[in-house]
């Protein structure tokens, strides 16, 4: 969104309270959604749960095309549509709910840096695994991505998306990486997250922030999604405090009193 449009949206957002019928759109849970999109969607759900904002999850096959930026998930609140975790956090902040108000400047900088780390390494690794690793692509991704559409559209869309993702990987320098190198990067990233978390319950001690939501979204999805090989989830399982962290958030925000449901 351009700067003017963003300023306009945040002005409008500030005037209305959070409605009861806010909806979050993602792709079809059972057949279509992929690892990276599921992670992003779960992160947003976790964030909204942490802010105590009710939201209904709706699954649509064309969610990616409905979204204003082309990425899922997106939320439909009142008469505004906002997609991706970053803009959603800002939108929610404009409405007066924020998880990171209690942090000082240095901590906010750290939080942003760690969120970029997760986006840079974990998300890119997930995309690589889904779209550039031939085994996974053949067995899982192609079949899932095009499943709501009839032949030949399902093949065409899947190839188009694969081509797009491969272009992006090449542009950022991941085009020549082997799977082992990617898994090593994931390991490094998890190690950094584990060291930062240490023995605390959340990344910034007592209160969860958007960083916790993002990390939970990605790690939980990696741990619970079945791929052709389990190496990705094995890398995460090496770090017990990250496992405990995911378990804690799952229990607190998703099973407690039936607030929200996890796939």
């Amino acid at each position: 969104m351009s700067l003017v449009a963003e300023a306009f949206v945040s002005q409008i957002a500030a005037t209305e309270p959070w409605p009861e019928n806010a909806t979050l759109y993602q792709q079809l849970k059972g057949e279509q959604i992929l690892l990276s999109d599921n992670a992003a969607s779960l992160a947003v759900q976790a964030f909204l749960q942490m802010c105590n904002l009710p939201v209904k999850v709706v699954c649509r096959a064309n969610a990616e095309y409905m979204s204003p930026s082309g990425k899922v998930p997106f939320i439909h609140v009142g008469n505004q549509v906002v997609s991706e975790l970053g803009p959603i956090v800002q939108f929610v902040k404009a409405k007066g709910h924020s998880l990171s108000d209690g942090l000082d400047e240095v901590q906010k900088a750290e939080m942003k840096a760690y969120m970029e780390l997760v986006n840079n390494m974990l998300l890119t690794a997930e995309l690589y695994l889904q779209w550039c690793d031939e085994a996974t692509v053949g067995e899982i991704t192609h079949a899932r991505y095009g499943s709501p559409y009839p032949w030949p559209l399902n093949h065409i869309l899947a190839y188009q998306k694969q081509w797009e993702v491969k272009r992006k990987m090449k542009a950022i320098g991941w085009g020549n990486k082997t799977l082992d190198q990617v898994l090593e990067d994931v390991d490094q990233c998890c190690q950094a997250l584990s060291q930062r978390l240490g023995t605390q319950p959340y990344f910034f001690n007592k209160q969860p922030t958007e960083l916790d939501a993002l990390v939970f979204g990605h790690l939980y999805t990696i741990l619970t999604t079945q791929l052709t090989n389990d190496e990705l989830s094995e890398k995460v399982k090496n770090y017990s405090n990250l496992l405990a962290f995911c378990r804690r958030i799952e229990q607190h925000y998703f099973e407690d009193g039936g607030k929200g449901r996890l796939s």
Partner: protein
Amino acid sequence: MAAPLELSCWGGGWGLPSVHSESLVVMAYAKFSGAPLKVNVIDNTWRGSRGDVPILTTEDNIVSHPAKILNFLRKQKYNADYELSAKQGADTLAYIALLEEKLLPAVLHTFWVESDNYFTVTKPWFASRIPFPLSLILPGKMSRGALNRILLTRGEPPLYRVQEVEAQIYRDAKECLNLLSNRLGTSQFFFGDTPSTLDAYVFGFLAPLYKVHFPKVQLQEHLKQLSNLCRFCDDILSSYFRLSLEGTSPAGQETVDANLQKLTQLVNKESNLIEKMDDNLRQSPQLPPRKLPTLKLTPAEEESNSIQRLSP
């Protein structure tokens, strides 16, 4: 380690040992960790490759890409990070990711995509260091690669347009600079008193932005307002790079006498000031004062010229 390490990278200018961010990162890290590095500057002979610069060659391997080169140097026991705690190591990774996601697109844009900058500064500089006829092809290729990277990571498919993302990437970059400035605070380096990998990366990304003279300078202006980041760059330049340029002492992690450092900084500031005044004087129009300023002057110079006219 006895194996000679040779680094081939782009050369320097405007007071920097190298104008290319990634080369600068590797050079800075080598200085911080004390690795003896022989620097081969790419020039316009056909010797050497200029593909994936910077490239580190030892007797048996060739390593490209700054992250891999740094890993290699660490394995050779040139480690600038061994004093860092585990959490600080994790922070390093996070901040490097922040730099690459938020600052790099805008730096690439300033150098390679912004047409004024590209055609007046970047392209001539790189073309003069590449042999003909590659000099006609390679800068264009690098520029297109930079544009590609910006659009693919920030643009919205399927219509990638650069105007839409320009405002966003500059805003992100300014935010990133503010965050770095907040994190640095008043300390000399990011983690205490000794420089580490993060300092090398920040220096590598910021120093070209800070020193190279561009026509379109919005990001540079923003950086210059963050005085602790400017001081950080100047400190590293004066303590780790001036010595080797003068050839008086071997490269390495030497602690410069604090007084000498301060003196050098003062002298540098003075000479910068004198240079600026000199520039202004030279560029003011040599015509009688009644003449209106020409359209070529930038607003800043117009202002300084009008001030000169007002003084007796």
